[in-house]
């Protein structure tokens, strides 16, 4: 990726207009069901621009929370406001969805499409205006470093490349809210380094929520960290504050891991080693 060769992009009026909301994402006592289980049970959030890491053990409700933010699931209770609009209304939802980028945990794609065709298709579905699509697609592909594979079929890509194509489709519409569920799964160490750099870049003007298992990703790339356990927000703070929460007696190989286990152990004292 050559940073000085970015495609120049026109900025439209909607983008430079002053925002009328304080927080890109605001939740108040948010409750969301996954099937019959209340997987997110009373979460309060107010997130602005920046990279927000979402940590937590399996089954803590991270994916359910992200799916609610992506408008896949409707809240079962509480309040959820995205870009100042309450989630629910139909016409409002369509406008809202143009401003969201989403990489699901199980990212599916049309295998016979080339990378470029697939990203174009997603840009069209996100109602990027027709004349802007080619440039937006090229920009997204270059940002995630797939330019040399842009005209290969999706089915020929390796796992890490597919993940990157997934990120490219999420950012192709220059979203105000970018939701990435396990984006670094399958990336090799060099790609993860590059990805963290991209996250920091995106976080300067976008509200990015990254769900991950990899604690060190959070430490380096995130402006703040949310720790979830059993459907509730256990901790919210900077990576440094997360590190500070752990002591020498807590399990973990790095300060931030020790902080992670300490905070979870405090919430779930009876939880076993897995």
């Amino acid at each position, binding site marked *: 990726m050559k940073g000085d060769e970015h495609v120049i992009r026109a900025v439209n009026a909607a983008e430079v207009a002053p925002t009328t909301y304080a927080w890109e994402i605001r939740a108040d006592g948010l409750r969301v069901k996954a099937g019959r289980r209340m997987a997110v049970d009373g979460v309060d959030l107010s997130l602005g621009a920046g990279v927000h890491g979402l940590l937590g053990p399996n089954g803590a409700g991270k994916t359910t929370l992200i*799916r609610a933010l*992506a*408008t*896949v699931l409707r809240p079962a209770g509480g309040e959820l406001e995205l870009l100042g609009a309450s989630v629910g209304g139909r016409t409002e*939802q*369509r*406008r*809202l*969805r*143009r401003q*969201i980028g*989403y990489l*699901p945990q*199980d*990212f*599916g*794609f*049309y*295998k*016979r*499409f080339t990378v470029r*065709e697939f990203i*174009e*298709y*997603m840009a*069209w*579905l*996100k*109602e990027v205006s*027709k004349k802007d*699509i080619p440039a937006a697609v090229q920009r997204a592909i270059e940002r995630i470093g797939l330019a040399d594979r842009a005209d290969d079929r999706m089915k020929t890509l390796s796992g890490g490349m597919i993940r990157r194509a997934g990120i490219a*489709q999420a950012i192709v519409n220059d979203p105000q809210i970018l939701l990435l569920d396990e984006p670094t799964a399958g990336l090799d160490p060099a790609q993860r380094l590059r990805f963290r750099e991209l996250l920091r870049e995106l976080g300067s003007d976008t509200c990015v929520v990254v769900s991950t298992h990899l604690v060190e990703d959070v430490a380096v790339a995130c402006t703040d960290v949310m720790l979830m356990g059993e459907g509730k927000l256990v901790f919210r703070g900077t990576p440094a504050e997360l590190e500070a929460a752990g002591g020498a007696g807590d399990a973990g190989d790095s300060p931030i891991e020790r902080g992670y286990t300490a905070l979870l152990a405090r919430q779930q004292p009876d939880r076993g080693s897995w």
Partner: protein
Amino acid sequence: MVIRTELRRSAAPWAAVLIVGIAAVLLFAFSGPWWKGGGAWNREWTGLARWERNTLVLLWPFAVGVGALQGLRDHRSGMAELLTTTPRPRWRRTAQTAGAMAIAMAVGYLVIFAIGAVQVAGNASYFHWGWTPVLLVGMLSLIGAAWLGMGIACLVPSVLTPPLLAVGALAVAMVTRISPDGGSSLSGSVPDRIAWLSPVQDGPDEAFTSVTGSMNLAQGLWFLAIAVTGFLLLAATRVATKLLAVVPMLVGAAVALPLLPATAAQVQEVDQGAVALVCAEGTPRVCVTNVHKEFLETLVQPAREALALLAKVPGAPTSVEEATTGQPLYGRRPVVPGVVQIDFDDFDLASGERTTTDPDRLRRYLVAGVGTPTCYGRMEMDENYMSLRAASAVSAAALTGELKPLSGSSSAYFRNELETLARPAWESFRVLPAAEQIARLSAMRVAAETCRGGTLEILTNGVAR
């Protein structure tokens, strides 16, 4: 942009190729079910459009199956979740895929027509636009089939959906195709009107008929309704819409059924433009139908020679006209007094596929039986058949002076039988005085015209047994 991608990456391109392939195999590699005469798929425009409809017996189930395969893509790819978060409405997205499939179906169907059209253009002298509804209805039925397959696969996203749908559609196509015909255990298994809801149609035997307007209209509406239902199933996001999707199909059936013809005879009508007679200048009168007008030049000379030969026999016909109906399966076509009718598809003239241009055979055909038509339908034959054939051959020999088989294509069996019956009759006839010969020919003509039988005895003994 998106539809271009869909045209390249969906099932559309190879579906179009396979449609052309399947139809080409049916049309080129098999000799039947079409009659190799004037109604053949590569001879006339209406014949082409109607025989292409016959290939739908395989193409239509294929379209349902391939549509279902395409309809499974969202499910197979696991993109459903991502797709629900995009702002563009589902119907706009599915319309692109459905549009690509429709283009593939239409192009495939038109390519088959074009392959036939190249041949027809070289063969047919009668051009008209009457075949277009038959072509368009066939095309619409394929689009409807593909969309219905897509819609059902979205509703029931299982790997078994495409094969089961295709096999089911094949069964429906077969049963509805066979049911209106006689002679099968499936005959009459569904009412004729229901059978005509199927896009599969038999082609014509000859070039004189076209499909009635009410048939085309009713079928067109019905396939449009199927397409609408298919698309609604595909585009629906809510359960209520999915349930309502059957409404267009029900309405389509309700409108189409009363419009469809009640009897098989009403499915087709005489194409007046095709059967209009075109006559040669001068006398005696020699006419062919408009659809075969290119043959008039070949016919006029031998026809006038034949009429000159016939003129020796009192009461013999004095003009030649092409018959405007095909030879029926059972019974004979009506006799027109004073006219020798010529049927270019008669197996005495069209031995392989093409009507002979040999003047000698044309002349012999016209004078055989002293210008009377055969008494037998295409499917008939009894103990008197051979003697009538022999009498025809002898009468032709009497007028032309030489005994020859009437047909170029008859089997060795027929030729032997004729030789054993006709040869002795001819040997005894040729030695008779000229006046007696004429008297016997005249008596034989009357007997043959009325199908009383005993024609060979009249020639050999002077009286019928």
